[in-house]
């Protein structure tokens, strides 16, 4: 049973963020910071120059500045590529932002393999693990441009440090009902009784394609959960579907250590241990490729890989 509706046009997650930050211009307490990447991450869609601060290629200072502004009672968006937030600025994120529980939203764009052609230096495959380990930090991984838009809008009115992972590549976009969207809930995208697929980010569309093929060709019915809030994590729904399907696959564009697979494993091992496998980056760095699909295929993140894993776990 499908619960998703695909939009006609593909759209990049960063554009969803851009739509939101443009709208947030109307909130007089929002301040946006960037480190010479405003156009790339779409922060420059923000419409008030007096509250848009170009920090130069000084990400460490940008994060500390962000926390200072936030501590004067403002809502601050600090934006860059995910390969700089959190890596370059982890100390600042931990101390200036998290330890002071400052109201700073950190936007990491071009995450995963989504800046395919730029290669290892500009790809980010460990950010979820890093951010998830920090006290006070929430971690949101939208699956589509529309979800990135909604998560940004909701995050603006949620106090405290939040990391939102966006991307560069145009991806499948989904219709989402803003009104009934609960940010901290796992979203049930598809119902099936045989295997539950836990996923986050742009891998959602690969999972959907795989599930449809499995249904038609192998008579295997998958449930799909879009776990876009990795922290806090929706323990209840994750357990419910583990209980229902008894077998699960985690699919993510991230190292297999500490990301969504880590988060799901932590929930299930103390509540509802099931047979669980993972599709993720196998402890490897990225590299250049002409398209993200080419790279996903090389690193074993394609729908064919998902299909194979699901069939295997059902054996």
């Amino acid at each position: 049973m499908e619960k998703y509706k695909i939009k006609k046009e593909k759209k990049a997650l960063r554009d969803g963020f851009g739509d939101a930050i443009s709208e947030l211009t109307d909130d007089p307490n929002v301040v946006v910071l960037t480190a010479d990447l405003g156009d790339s991450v779409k922060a420059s869609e923000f419409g008030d120059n007096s509250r848009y601060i170009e920090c130069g290629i000084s990400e460490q200072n940008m994060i500390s500045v962000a926390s200072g502004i936030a501590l004067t009672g403002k809502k601050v968006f600090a934006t860059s590529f995910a390969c700089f937030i959190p890596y370059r600025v982890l100390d600042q994120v931990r101390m200036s932002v998290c330890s002071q529980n400052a109201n700073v939203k950190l936007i990491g764009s071009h995450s995963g393999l989504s800046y395919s052609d730029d290669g290892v230096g500009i790809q980010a495959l460990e950010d979820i693990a890093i951010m998830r380990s920090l006290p006070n930090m929430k971690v949101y991984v939208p699956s589509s441009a529309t979800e990135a838009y909604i998560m940004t809008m909701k995050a603006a009115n949620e106090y405290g440090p939040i990391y939102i992972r966006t991307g560069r590549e145009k991806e499948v976009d989904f219709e989402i009902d803003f009104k009934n969207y609960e940010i901290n809930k796992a979203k049930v995208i598809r119902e099936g009784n045989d295997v539950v697929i836990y996923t986050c980010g742009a891998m959602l569309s690969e999972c959907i394609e795989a599930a449809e093929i499995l249904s038609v060709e192998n008579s295997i019915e998958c449930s799909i959960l879009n776990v876009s809030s990795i922290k806090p994590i929706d323990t209840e729904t994750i357990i419910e579907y583990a209980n229902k399907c008894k077998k699960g696959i985690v699919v993510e564009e991230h190292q297999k250590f500490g990301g969504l697979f880590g988060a799901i494993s932590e929930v299930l091992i103390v509540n509802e241990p099931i047979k669980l496998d993972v599709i993720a980056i196998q402890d490897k760095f990225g590299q250049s490729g002409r398209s993200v699909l080419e790279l996903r295929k090389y690193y074993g993140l394609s729908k064919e890989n998902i299909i194979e894993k699901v069939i295997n776990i059902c054996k």
Partner: protein
Amino acid sequence: MNHSLEELKTISNNIRKNILTMTTNAKSGHVAGAMGIADIMTYLYFEEMQIEKVSEYFDNDIQRKSVFNTNRDRFVLSAAHMVPALYSVLIEKGFIDKTEIDNLRKFGSKLQGHTAIDLTIGVETTGGSLGQGVGIASGFAISSKIFKSESRIYCILGDGESNEGSVWEASMFGNKYRLDNLVFILDKNNIQLSNFTENIMPMDSICDKWKSFGWNVIEIDGNNFDDISKAFYLARETKGKPSIIIANTIPGKGVSFLENNYIWHGKVLNEDELKEALIELDK
């Protein structure tokens, strides 16, 4: 000035006694740097900064409690290991109860080993990792500019701390945004944890460095109230650029056996040494 020179000297002497007493009680802490900045801290809190207690309120939607006016001047101790100096001045100011002097670094105490944000006692930021307070102070300052507050921002950083690249990022930022409501005070005491600064990482021509980054640079004797007073006046009068006061201070100032010796950077006095030091400070 609101206080006479003698009054200021008495206050800074009390601060020095507080610093030594609380660190010996705690059996750990950073003594020398804290002693060196006692005069600057005295001047900041008793002459320069506008900060007053108001009725208790919640700072924002996380319900962070504050007892200070929202448009106050803000102080950031970027070299957060010198926090005994901050607690000591806040005690003299009456923002921290005198009895807390026994509780430095104790479990559950407000007097954490490094600064920890607590607006019920006047600690504005959390610190411990060097090179971040300067950025937070810059954030306070630009927010004050954007949202048209009168609030001025003061931040003490160390000369050892100036090894951190992020200090120079903040320096570029302050210059770019012409943060004339921001005053850095560089505590130049020539020591850092394991040796003299010149042996760890030379910071030659520190005034020229800051000048070339576009800052208004004022070099003073950081243990002389006339110098300190003039410097803060000049900083306030300087428009269109941020100011940095290069304060040459004597680490361990006030107690002869502590002065100018890096071994006291991160070491505290034992009971006998404390007695001896307090006698010297009472002279």
